[in-house]
């Protein structure tokens, strides 16, 4: 292969990447603004909220509980050396609200719900269900894509809030009930140092941004995948990888802007 051929390949790969980015942007605009609503939307949205949100609840609650417990245990072991183990409450709460709550929820959400969305939509495309819908005059963006996108936007921030609460409760269980930190100082230190707007609302904003990015990537990868079984498997992998990288990168930028 000559040097010119390599250059051509490189250029084509670059153009492909930019085209895919543009296609996903147009896709998002079409789904969100091109159509006023999604048909007999409410029932479709409820069904997706169930499969995307409610079914993810178990993994979120269990991992939130264990992450809160581990944070309290580690925090206690470090802080007890300085004789300030009362600060374990504020440490657990701030870590969960600012960073771990939104980020870990988004990563779990990408693995649990995002990959499922990609695989489902990809298979619909591979078995030509999407093009059949178009043939009979039904818009797949409106009936298939839009409800899934909105369900993701709505459920991930809610999941992140549940994650934080369960984590803080798990931390209290370890610190107060097991390690014997005085429960008054656990909660009071927490309430003195956690600010509603700075910590809780900023964490919620992070969760909303991550929800947007993860769901967008998942749905677009499904819609844009190569309609073969290999293509679906590649698209599912890409969803998890891209979504995780995007969440971690965005988290740094958002933290730098917020705190």
């Amino acid at each position: 292969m000559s040097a010119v051929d390599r250059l051509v390949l490189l250029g084509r790969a670059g153009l492909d990447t930019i085209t895919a980015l543009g296609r996903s942007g147009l896709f998002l605009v079409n789904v969100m603004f091109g159509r006023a609503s999604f048909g007999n939307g409410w029932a479709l949205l409820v069904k997706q909220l169930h499969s995307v949100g409610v079914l993810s609840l178990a993994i979120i609650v269990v991992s939130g509980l264990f992450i809160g417990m581990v944070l309290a245990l580690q925090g206690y072991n470090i802080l007890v050396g300085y004789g300030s183990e009362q600060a374990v409450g504020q440490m657990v709460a701030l870590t969960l609200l600012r960073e771990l709550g939104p980020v870990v929820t988004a990563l779990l959400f990408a693995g649990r719900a995002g990959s499922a969305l990609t695989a489902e939509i990809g298979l619909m495309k591979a078995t030509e269900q999407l093009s059949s819908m178009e043939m009979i005059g039904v818009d797949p963006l409106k009936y298939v894509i839009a409800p899934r996108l909105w369900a993701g936007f709505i459920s991930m921030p809610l999941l992140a809030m549940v994650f934080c609460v369960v984590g803080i409760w798990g931390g209290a269980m370890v610190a107060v009930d097991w390690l014997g930190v005085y429960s008054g100082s656990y909660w009071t230190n927490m309430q003195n140092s956690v600010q509603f707007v700075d910590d809780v609302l900023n964490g919620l904003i992070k969760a909303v941004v991550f929800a947007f990015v993860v769901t967008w990537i998942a749905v677009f990868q499904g819609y844009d995948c190569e309609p073969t079984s290999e293509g679906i498997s590649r698209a599912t992998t890409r969803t998890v990888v891209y979504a995780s990288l995007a969440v971690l990168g965005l988290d740094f930028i958002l933290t730098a802007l917020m705190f």
Partner: protein
Amino acid sequence: MRIRNLELTVGVFILAGVLALTVLALRVAGLTPGSTGSTYSVHAYFDNVAGLTSRAKVTMSGVTIGQVTAIEFDKNRYSARVDMAIDSDVDTLPADSTASILTAGLLGEKYVGISVGGEEDLLVDGSEIYDTQSALVLEELIGRFLLNTVSKED
């Protein structure tokens, strides 16, 4: 019936999310609705507020009676102005009460402690606490201690 069950679980899920946000606001961030309505504000000037933050407790005899609302530097007096909101129930503070900046525990957070004076005039909304004691700065304390031991040896 199947759709109805689906709607029920989704409803419970959304309710759980909203409830979680409320818990975070009330229990974790300590946001208490309507507590700001029944306070009056006083201010005091301190030479050094090192470590005192907004929303810190204002206590009397160890009981919380209010909180710090704002801290800013007064460039004309070269000192820090601390604004405090005191609960209106506590309206019998003499005008010559002392405000001092104290520390909870060895490394704990800073708070303002008020000790009672003897004057008959009372603190009202907008009045100033003249008698103040600044925060204890460990370096200054050690410096003074060293200076004392040196001058004793002379």
